[in-house]
């Protein structure tokens, strides 16, 4: 197990370097001058442009810039954003908010998604199953910002159940509606995936054996069926954790949540290179750690998998 974790950690290094390099190149090598953009429509003073370029290291070659970025990163320095604030500072404010939001969405999709999936899988072909199948398909095909706006207008403004926008991003109760919206699509996926998996496993020999040897239904469903059916679901949930952190761009924008997604969106549209690279680096780390955790969880769920 220890050796497996070590090998996986080593494999993460080239992936980390490659992914950050792609984002780095997309930000700095593509057309568009970030420093000139700082001046907006005004004519840029060449001396100031040169000074700023030097300050952010933009006068060096791309490879040198990337090397500087990497070596600073290992010292724990994410650089300074074009707004003159430390990137680590900005992220330090935004990350706790996004973690709370992602947690709300994650708990919802895991609990309700698996519950709905188990229910529909066990009641396959019944009316409950049909209704849930149609509803989840609808949720998947409606763009998330439409769901977000409808939820905001109806639940927030017209029926007045909750605040339509988040006034204090650190108050987790205000994050429940954005969390539901953020998790809705994944919830639909989780329930469908669980259903498919349950339907596949329910006809397997070990379930028949478990019933035949007289185990109570609760144990057959809760232990034998569920534990085996959850293996593909756990993979999805793990990779989705990363997606929830980054995919919150839309949801955070609609509900005015001051999290990572909002920060990143402002950084991208404002062409704030250091902030974009820093934020995406953080998201890549989340993604890599989540996929490592998924692989380790496999061993817990499925004892047939052993890591050498």
């Amino acid at each position, binding site marked *: 197990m220890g050796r497996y974790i070590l090998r996986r950690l080593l*494999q993460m290094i*080239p*992936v*980390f370097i*490659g*992914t950050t390099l*792609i*984002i780095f190149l*997309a*930000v700095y090598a*593509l*057309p*568009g001058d970030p420093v000139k953009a700082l001046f907006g429509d005004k004519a840029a003073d060449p001396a100031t442009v040169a000074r700023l370029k030097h300050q952010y290291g933009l006068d060096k070659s791309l490879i040198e810039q990337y090397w500087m970025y990497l070596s600073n990163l290992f010292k724990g320095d994410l650089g300074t954003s074009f707004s003159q604030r430390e990137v680590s500072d900005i992220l330090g404010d935004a990350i706790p908010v996004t973690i709370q939001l992602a947690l709300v969405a994650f708990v919802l999709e895991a609990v309700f998604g698996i519950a709905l999936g188990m229910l529909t899988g066990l009641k*396959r*072909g019944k009316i409950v*199953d*049909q209704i849930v*199948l*149609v509803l*989840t*398909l*609808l949720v*998947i*095909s*409606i*763009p*998330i*910002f*439409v769901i977000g*706006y*409808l939820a905001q*207008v109806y639940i927030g*403004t017209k029926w007045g159940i909750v605040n339509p926008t988040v006034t204090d991003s650190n108050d987790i109760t205000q994050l429940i509606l954005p969390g539901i919206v953020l998790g809705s699509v994944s919830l639909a*996926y989780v329930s*469908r*995936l669980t259903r*498919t*998996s349950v*339907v*596949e496993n329910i*006809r397997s020999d070990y379930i028949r054996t478990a019933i035949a040897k007289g185990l109570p239904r609760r144990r057959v469903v809760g232990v034998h069926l569920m534990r085996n059916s959850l293996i*593909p679901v756990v993979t*999805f949930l793990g990779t989705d954790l*990363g*997606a929830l952190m*980054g*995919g919150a*761009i*839309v949801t955070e*924008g609609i509900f005015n949540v001051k999290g990572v997604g909002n920060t990143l*969106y402002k950084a*991208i*549209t404002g*062409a704030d290179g250091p902030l*974009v690279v820093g934020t*995406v680096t953080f*998201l*890549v780390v989340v*993604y*890599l750690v989540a996929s490592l955790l998924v692989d380790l969880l496999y061993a817990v769920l499925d004892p047939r998998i052993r890591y050498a």
Partner: protein
Amino acid sequence: MPELNDTATARATATVSPAGTGDVTPEKPKKETSNSLWSNAWRDLRRRPVFIVSAVIILLLLAISAFPGWFTDADPKPGDLTHFLQKPNFSHIGDADWFGYDAQGRSIYARVIYGARASIIVGVVTTAIVTVLGMLIGMIAGYFGGWVDAVLSRLTDIFSGVPILLGSLVILQAFTGRTAWTVSAAIGVLGWTQITRVMRGAVITVKQADYVQAARALGAGSGRILMKHVLPNSLAPVIVVATISLGMYISLEATLSYLGIGIQNGISWGGDISDGSEQIRNALHVLLFPAGFLSVTVLAFIMLGDAVRDALDPKLR
């Protein structure tokens, strides 16, 4: 026996799973004929209502995006403020005021019809890029194995580490005058990893099959084996993933347009939904019609992909 199975198969078709795992339906084993997987699948598909419905919707959308003039006489571009946020008039089927007017007094029906083309182009072109790249890389990695596979698999890991929405936002931000083609290219460059993984897995399975060994023993070269044996036999899962992702790319383009970084020239559903969301408190119909068309399109591709998957899944036979 087809009559007996129809309800069971119809239920099974309505399943989406991102991992591409099939749904098992208790179906009577069909009589084995000499027919290929593809003709069996086609016979099976023709009987599925879900397939027929989604295929009809998709054909209609293709017709709308190719010949929008056939479906409306109204012009989608000029606004007439006397029609400001006018409510839909459902009795005027096919007229300019059928779906009402938006905040600039433009006919929503005409805009929905003319906006279809951008979405369809993004969906089809992105899927084409992703499929070609993904199949090529997956086939090379799976067939040659060894260090080639190691390098390409790491490359796949790297690209799948870039979140697709964020990555395409960063790329597209650098371009001005974005068209449906620019957006497709940006999504396509980042989106090929899923098909690569599916293809690689399929190729590794096919490679060990006896008929491939036999072909190699008869002296066939790598090129011939890849084209004549490996490719046709690993196509099925790729087609399923590609069809379902086509809908997803259309939805992604709308999200990009909503964030203001999508198609800039011309009419698109994403842009209109974004405009409509500003009017959501006054006039819901401005948002509802483009959003409805978009959702139905995405839905049609997902259902088509599901139906094809169920028809091609050998576990159902």
